[in-house]
């Protein structure tokens, strides 16, 4: 097991070294801090890499790594001023190609994002994908995500952010209640097929998360926003637990467990009985729960509390009754 961890880290470091050399060649003199910011790595990682590059090279004709066969660095500038000046280069001239898998990961990522207004120019995206394929050392692996149409709601949200004005829309929450919301959009997030808007809600006077497919009639207003994305700290987690959340005990078929992962609190325990796992999920209210459980028929059963159990039963029975008529 420990074996596997080693090469993985070393591979990442190698990719960094092979990428850093051509970057440094293009910058006669550059500060460690600037390089670290550009590659989003800690400064010490840059210093380690530069130290390694400076003593590396090719065996050369003698097979002895003679002076001219090695990279060289203006050491004083580096040690005293944190500046990188490569004074001698060997072997590497240009940036490395992408691997077939790397190109495929980016192409599939672009495909997944095709609903974004930034992707409206399909010809530009297609040429970007073609460049990735051409810039790979092997054909991109055969992994793809279906394209989607540009999302009209996303386009309007983007407009309101660009103009710095509040956004207004009709929102249907999972309790089934409609409300006119006015918000300052902060960020768009997605989890698989579901897209969300995180925004400062002027009605609730707090940050709220809205499902895009529950938003109707979005419109930009002429009212300037009160909160800019930079001023509001958003938590990393899309769904934050709240003190009002309810804990529900369920029995779940092991195969369906990954589908509920977002609802299972970290501290939840689970025990197996009769091929089912008994565990706990956290929900903000039972209206959401009844939809969730009914959407996994035969795979999930609510054990308690009995009120939650009854709400699921009533929901499903009311649905079934429509077919008796």
């Amino acid at each position, binding site marked *: 097991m420990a074996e596997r961890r080693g090469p993985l880290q070393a591979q990442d470091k190698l990719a960094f070294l092979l990428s850093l050399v051509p970057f440094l060649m293009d910058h006669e003199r550059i500060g460690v801090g600037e390089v670290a910011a550009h590659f989003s790595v800690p400064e010490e990682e840059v210093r380690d890499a530069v130290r390694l590059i400076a003593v590396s090279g*090719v065996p050369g004709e003698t097979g002895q790594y003679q002076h001219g066969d090695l990279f060289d660095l203006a050491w004083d500038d580096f040690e005293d001023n944190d500046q990188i000046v490569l004074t001698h280069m060997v072997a590497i001239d240009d940036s490395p190609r992408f691997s077939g898998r790397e190109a495929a990961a980016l192409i599939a990522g672009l495909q997944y994002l095709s609903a974004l207004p930034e992707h409206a120019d399909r010809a530009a995206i297609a040429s970007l994908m073609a460049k990735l394929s051409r810039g790979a050392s092997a054909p991109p692996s055969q992994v793809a995500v279906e394209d989607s149409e540009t999302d009209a709601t996303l386009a309007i949200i983007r407009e309101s952010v660009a103009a710095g004005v509040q956004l207004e829309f009709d929102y249907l929450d999972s309790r089934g209640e409609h409300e006119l919301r006015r918000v300052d959009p902060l960020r768009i997030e997605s989890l698989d*097929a579901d897209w969300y808007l995180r925004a400062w809600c002027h009605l609730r006077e707090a940050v709220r998360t809205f499902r895009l497919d529950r938003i109707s009639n979005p419109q930009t207003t002429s009212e300037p926003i009160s909160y800019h994305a930079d001023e509001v700290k958003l938590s990393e987690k899309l769904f934050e637990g709240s003190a009002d959340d309810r804990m529900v005990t369920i029995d779940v078929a092991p195969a369906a467990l990954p589908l509920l992962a977002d609802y299972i609190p970290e501290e939840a325990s689970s025990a197996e009985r009769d091929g089912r796992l008994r565990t706990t999920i956290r929900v903000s209210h039972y209206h959401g729960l009844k939809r969730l459980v009914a959407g996994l028929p035969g795979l999930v059963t609510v054990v308690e509390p009995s009120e939650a*159990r009854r709400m699921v039963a009533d929901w499903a029975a009311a649905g079934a009754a429509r077919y008796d008529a």
Partner: protein
Amino acid sequence: MAQSSSPRVPVEERLFSLVLALLATETGLSKNEILSTVQGYRQRYSASGDNANLERQFERDKDDIRELGVPLETLDAPGQAGNNQNLRYRIPRGAYELPSDISFSAEETALLGLAAMVWREGSLSAESRRAIVKLRSLGGGTGEPVLGYVPSLRVRDAAFEPARSALEKHQIVRFSYLKPGEADARVRTVAPLALVQHQGRWHLHALEPDTGVTKTFLLRRIVSQVTTTGKTFVPDETDQTSAALAELEQVWNSHTAEVEVTPDSDAASRLRKRRGTRTTASGTLLLHYSDANIVADELTGYGPEVLVLSPPELRLAVSARLRLVAEEHATPTEGDDHG
């Protein structure tokens, strides 16, 4: 034991030195030349003794380097084709370097940064992270996006990683597949051609070598581990994903359900926004779907907000599911406890 006294060279230094040495050579280096001269190997090389460990190390290093997209090639020594000991290794510059006419604008770099972020959890995260490092190698700043995005795509199917690895290595695999409507899973042996996501679900497009027929498997229905058979196949280099997606799209288009939704309900709002949904003159919705069992589960979640009008088998499937959920949640009655 002599090896332990020599200074330890970090793995990345050995790999970096190997890439540099193989990039610098036109004619290639023999394995012996590599092991005896390249930094990280030479310290452990024995001129007289057995270098079997070191040779195995070199084999693993070659794999690790190739995995990064470095095109390490082997050449037969002139006049000695087939002699394994005399193979020569090199990295041809043209195949290694990003073509000089490829550059990315600030907007493109920003989009690619988002595309990489999509995979930040789990599958393909290492690949997308490394792709971004290589992209930054080109310099080029990223334009600040107008609107902040945090996209993420998670693959929840256990079959994805082994299927992807087999796809990569052109290995024939075996797994048990449970077809809806069948009581027992059946073992399938297939050559993986493509992995595609359609309507939020991952599918394996594969060729059955026994029949020569290509089939598409929903990963969610693979009920066993995906195991390799030890056999490989010669892949077709053409794009398989478009064909796989087109086939899934055609299946999706060919199935239409008509449903009645309660006005202003969650079902009305969300189903209307589902791709391809049409509203009829009478206000009912026409929905496309790929798989009756999956859409039946989805529609069951809407409870009384949805009434399936057609097709009859979907109507039956949804009503049966609703009854099942209602029965499973019928509160344990006093009857149960008190006889």
